[in-house]
């Protein structure tokens, strides 16, 4: 259907339907402006090329001929000249010189490049040269080599690949080499990518700041540019000024450094919060199923961690199957694993409820012990089945890589887990608030006997609630398989943390669980730099132990006689 519509449009001439236009000219007003500016730019480039063409050809010949000399100073001059000329053959010539493969014929000062197979090409044209007679290599010394390095940098500043240009600019920023200044100026003039242009300007500022000969006012202005850059490199740059720097410049540098440190501290706090939220999301995912089973049924499920582990192993199995049957689906494997994990863990959960927990209602401590037994059995079963070692779970391509926002590095997998946690939480909340099952569940939470008296089949609610809690643990397992080792012990690592989250948040309150997970996640990340990861965790455990003394029923506790 779609195809026919499109072909109809193609045939119909003169139609103004947007999709009949070629890309780049979509939409009427905007399209016209864009087309116009593109055309202008193209024309400009063409004019420049035409104007520059003949002059360049002559210059290049002369520049290249300057290599045919025994004088090191002349060679240095030739390198510098060639590098800033923008000649298309500059790069291969200078590379050849660096590798000692540049030769010249003394008779006519023609310059050739010796290729690895010992054939020769003309340096100027790049065309093969058959008979070249006796040649001498162009000589190298340290001065020349330095000039070559600078020239390579300068050439990279003009390289067609934006990534090369960016890294060249960064290199100059770090080296603050005054000799790169002309090349840098030339590159800034030509650069069109605003991001790279900014990098180049920062590099120029760094060169200016470091240059003792530059005017004070220029140096201070340059410090301003560096402060705006505001990262660790800028800080290092400002800190590296020699003691001989004029006081005014140094003061400017110092105050700029203070400013940078302040911003960096804010960014670092932001980064901590970000990592904390990401850890909190993991905790939330791991704990939320527990919050349901504990909150609704008062059941402490020590096998909850194993449900998470089973979710992770389901992901592994799904990926193995996909690898064999449909390797092309690897990138969506997690979306197949999610429902599978939910079903597998949920089904096991319902089985546990029907077979064991059902018989132990009203005896929470016994339930705790029995489910601990279940957790041992499940762990050992997985160990026997899949082996005791870690299983490798593939991370889909869209979950790797990262983006930078300011000085925040946001990795795709963290982002994905946070988003996933939010979706799970929101869905669960909606489910409990808006569906009949949710209503029944809440009724059972608040007053089991009354709910039973009103015709709610509490035992079914229990079974499905337990299944739901376990299923969510399975979902958590899919997420955790992306950031943690998939091993039989996976669940054990999370069970105590999950309990802490639930107990801290208060039983029977999903919002409490959310707040607790985030609080603990963020607190953990802020403690880590000062106390180290392990000590930070110990401190949090001690905090929660003390907190429970103060508020035995958690942050958001139900109050009143109904609790007892």
């Amino acid at each position, binding site marked *: 259907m779609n195809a026919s519509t499109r072909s109809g449009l193609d045939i119909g001439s003169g139609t103004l339907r947007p999709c009949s236009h070629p890309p780049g000219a979509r939409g009427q007003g905007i399209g016209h402006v864009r087309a116009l500016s593109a055309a202008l730019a193209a024309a400009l480039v063409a004019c420049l090329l035409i104007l520059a063409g003949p002059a360049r050809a002559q210059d290049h010949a002369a520049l290249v001929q300057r290599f045919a000399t025994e004088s090191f100073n002349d060679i240095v001059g030739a390198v510098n000249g060639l590098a800033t000329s923008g000649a298309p053959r500059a790069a291969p010539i200078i590379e050849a010189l660096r590798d000692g493969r540049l030769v010249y014929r003394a008779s006519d000062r023609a310059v050739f490049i010796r290729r690895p197979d010992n054939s020769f090409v003309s340096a100027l044209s790049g065309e093969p040269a058959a008979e070249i007679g006796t040649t001498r290599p162009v000589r190298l010394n340290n001065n020349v080599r330095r000039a070559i390095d600078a020239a390579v940098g300068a050439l990279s500043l003009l390289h067609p690949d934006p990534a090369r240009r960016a890294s060249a600019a960064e290199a100059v920023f770090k080296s603050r080499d005054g000799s790169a200044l002309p090349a840098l100026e030339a590159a800034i003039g030509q650069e069109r990518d605003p991001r790279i242009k900014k990098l180049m300007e920062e590099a120029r500022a760094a060169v200016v700041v470091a240059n003792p000969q530059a005017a004070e006012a220029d140096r201070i202005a340059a410090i301003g540019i560096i402060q705006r850059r505001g990262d660790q490199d800028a800080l290092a740059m400002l800190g590296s000024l020699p003691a001989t720097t004029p006081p005014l410049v140094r003061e400017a540098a110092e105050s700029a450094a203070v400013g940078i440190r302040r911003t960096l501290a804010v960014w670092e706090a932001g980064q901590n919060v970000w990592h904390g939220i990401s850890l909190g999301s993991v905790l939330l995912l791991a704990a939320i199923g527990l919050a349901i089973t504990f909150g609704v049924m008062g059941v*402490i499920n020590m096998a909850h961690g194993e449900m998470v582990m089973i979710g992770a192993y389901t992901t592994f199995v799904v990926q193995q199957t996909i690898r064999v049957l449909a390797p092309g689906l690897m990138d969506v494997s997690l979306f197949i694993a999610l429902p599978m994990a939910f079903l597998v863990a949920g089904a096991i959960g319902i089985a546990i409820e029907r077979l*064991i927990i059902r*018989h*132990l209602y009203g005896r*929470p*401590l*016994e*339930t*705790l*012990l*029995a489910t*601990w*037994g*279940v*957790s*041992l*059995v*499940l*762990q*050992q*079963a997985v*160990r*026997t089945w899949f082996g005791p070692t870690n299983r490798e779970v593939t991370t889909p391509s869209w979950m790797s890589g990262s983006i930078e926002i300011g000085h925040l590095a946001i990795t795709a997998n963290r982002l994905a887990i946070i988003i996933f946690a939010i979706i799970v939480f929101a869905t669960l909340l909606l489910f409990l608030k808006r569906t009949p099952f949710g209503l029944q569940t809440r009724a059972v939470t608040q007053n089991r006997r009354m709910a039973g008296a009103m015709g709610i089949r509490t035992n079914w609610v229990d079974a499905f609630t337990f299944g739901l809690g376990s299923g969510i643990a399975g979902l958590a397992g899919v997420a955790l398989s992306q950031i943690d080792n998939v091993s039989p012990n996976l669940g054990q690592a999370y069970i*105590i943390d999950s*309990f*802490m989250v639930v*107990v801290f948040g208060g039983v029977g309150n999903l919002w409490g669980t959310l707040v607790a997970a985030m609080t603990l996640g963020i607190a953990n990340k802020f403690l880590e730099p000062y106390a180290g990861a*392990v*000590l930070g*965790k*110990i401190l949090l*455990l*001690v905090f*929660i*132990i*003390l907190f*429970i*003394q*103060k508020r*035995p*029923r958690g942050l958001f506790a139900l109050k009143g006689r109904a609790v007892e």
Partner: protein
Amino acid sequence: MMLTRFLFERIDRGGWVFLVLLGIAAVLVPVLNLAVPPGSMFHVSNTAVGLWGKYMTYALLAIAVDLVWGYCGILSLGHGAFFALGGYAMGMYLMLQIGPRGVYAHPTLPDFMVFLNWTELPVAWWGFSSFPYAMLMVALVPGLLAFVFGWFAFRSRVTGVYLSIITQALTYALMLAFFRNDMGFGGNNGLTDFKDILGFNIQSQTTRAVLFSLSVLALMAGYLVARAIVTSKAGKIIIAIRDAEPRTRFLGYRVENFKLFVWTVSAVMAGIAGALYVPQVGIINPSEFSPANSIEAIVWVAVGGRGTLVGAALGAGLVNFAKSWFTGAFPQGWLFALGGLFILVTLFLPKGILGTFTDWWKRRGETRKPPTASPASQPAE
């Protein structure tokens, strides 16, 4: 005299049997091990002495757990912490006994400290070269920790699963802490390579036999103390707290003080068990703090029968015997068996082996007797 009366006057028949059997074991096992030649069928092997000695310390731990769980309803998932702390106190003494015989031959510092480039003994280790001081710490450190923890927890009325979970968090936090090298307790290698205890070579079979007997004696003492507590009026109140805590409170009893008392006594008992355990197995490391160990101690009590003391000790022996057998015969099967044990006992044998047996025995007695107006006459007090 007072004390003897306090300890011995309320022991029942089963208790006497238990004590007598233990007393026989304390004498007979070392004799059969040391005096009977290895070829004889009555010889008790060195391995068996070590193994049974270990079981005795486990049984003492089980009695400690039973005291709080079986009688006071406090399900502690962290008793392994007290056991391990007692063990560490003993281990520190043994460590300092090594003296210059370590790998690095440092006159005072244990090997791991030399390895970490430490130059002097950390404050926590001061005094541990003295045996009496170390023994004091064996009781004091777990006792104090339990007292402080219990003081806060019971005062704030943290009960039930909440209490269980925070006891688990307690032992977990301690495990993480002891894994750290800079805690100064040997990091994840723990304390090991002990040489001698009170001047006796810890490897010699005589020392090991004596340690066995001491473990049995400690178990007997632990049983006597626990039994005396639970049969006293205070014990009745402790049981009352387990069954109806608010009622006890409204009768005017300070529930938190009673809980704190049994909790602390139990922790000290666990600490002593740990202290006897370490010289017999020759090592103590942070994995002793792992929550799984504490929960395993719970299943010993559950299997034997909680609220029976003797049953708890039997349970510890049985489960650990099974563990030794399984790890030899079916190493893969042990966790299945243990997990299954947790499930089956809670579902089908809530009173444990001894509790179920006693019930059956009583019922049998009742059906034989003609029905009377006042059934099940109580033993005279």
